[in-house]
């Protein structure tokens, strides 16, 4: 284990791919606080997030050999690979929850007659999605570049990313037409790519 402390996350993943469980334990040690934060943010409660994290780490153990450190000469950071696994498991859980809810209440409506969304349960943990988005942009030093976009573009992208909302849910939350929201998110993603690329953070 002492040897593992000096290893990079990338080498630990390679170790786990060879079946070295001590490497896998060290991956958990280094990443679980962050990944649990991501899962709680998406799912809105700790128990559901623990279930998701359990599935995610079992998947990481089984699929460690699938991690590639570079694509076309561009680095793929191991942490972003891990985050993607957790987010996909969380999205599965959110969709399963939605199917159960739809089954029980075909069309949930609030007292004002407005459609309630899954976001209502996931939205309460502070800080808000837009705030997290702005913090990330600032930390990446692309806030200037991204500010060229209207706030609703950034807000729709933030809701989809941090809360795992679908296009329809983002549209309901922002009280905007579905087609408009799809275009906002598309433009937001394009701008994010351009800004990250200009900053040399990601391809």
């Amino acid at each position, binding site marked *: 284990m002492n040897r593992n402390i000096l290893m990079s996350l*990338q080498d630990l993943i*390679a170790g786990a791919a*060879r*079946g070295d*469980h001590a490497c896998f*334990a060290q991956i*958990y040690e280094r990443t*679980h*606080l962050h990944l*649990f*934060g*991501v899962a*709680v943010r998406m799912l809105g409660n*700790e128990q559901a*997030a*623990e279930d998701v*994290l*359990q599935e995610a*780490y*079992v998947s990481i*153990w*089984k699929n460690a*050999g*699938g991690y*590639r*450190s*570079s*694509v*076309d*000469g561009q*680095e*793929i*950071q191991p*942490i*972003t*690979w891990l*985050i*993607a696994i957790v*987010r*996909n498991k969380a*999205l599965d859980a959110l*969709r399963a929850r939605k199917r159960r809810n739809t089954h029980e209440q075909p069309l949930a409506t609030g007292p004002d007659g407005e459609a309630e969304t899954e976001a209502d349960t996931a939205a309460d943990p502070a800080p808000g999605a837009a705030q*997290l*988005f702005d913090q*990330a942009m600032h*930390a*990446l030093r692309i806030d200037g570049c991204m500010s060229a976009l209207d706030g609703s573009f950034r807000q729709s992208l933030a809701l*989809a*990313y*941090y809360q795992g909302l*679908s296009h329809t849910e983002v549209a309901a939350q922002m009280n905007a037409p579905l087609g408009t929201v799809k275009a906002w*998110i*598309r433009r937001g*993603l394009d701008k*994010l*790519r351009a800004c*990250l690329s200009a900053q040399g*953070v*990601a*391809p």
Partner: protein
Amino acid sequence: MRYTDARLLDALASAYALGTLEGGARRRFERLMRDRADVRDVVAQWEQRLGQLALSVPQRKPSADLWRAIAARTQPAQAQQARQARPSRWTSWLRPAGFGFGGLVAGVIAASALFLAVPGAFITSDQLAMRTGERLPQSYVGVLTDTDGRGRLLVSSLRHGRTVTLKVLGATALPVSGDERLVLWALPADAAPFAIGTVPASGAGTLTLPDTSEKLLSKVSRLVVTRERSASPAAPSADVVLSGACAKLW
């Protein structure tokens, strides 16, 4: 859908990585990812971009039970696999071909055991194809050795794919200085050598081919890696670091 339009693929990959691709479309896209390394590459790049957004999410501490549950689900399987694993020479990577024809029953267990027996030999596309399709993929494979005869680089490419997967073997990085790069060359039997791309000094990587490996590599019997100073060398330099045979794995 044929998914040949690069812009459509990029849009689908970004929606998949973000999570807004839903239902049947998401499942279809996941199947496509299993079959195509180039699609996985585009997704990996989007995950790399979007992953930056997660860095601002505050950390949270789960209960101590979580690790116990994860360890319980991963350790016993690991012990079982370790018992099946046999240390073997690197040349034995050809042996699993027999498994493929016989049908890799219990795909995950068998593939994992092979994986342990031959560390790093089956990765990414090939490994996925083995695990999901329970077969060995139709591919070109090369194992390049250094001057001491040690296997240092595994090169593989699905025959109908346009991606080459690279895996540097061994504990040390390949020897290269800051102003040089390692270039992988294909040496066809009846034509001039052509560059496939840059090899990482350590770890794994992928390269994109201008055409399918079936077209490009069918007449290639040898691969070499040279150290190059030029950004786009026209021919391999004499500074050969690794070399090896390129074989068609059925």
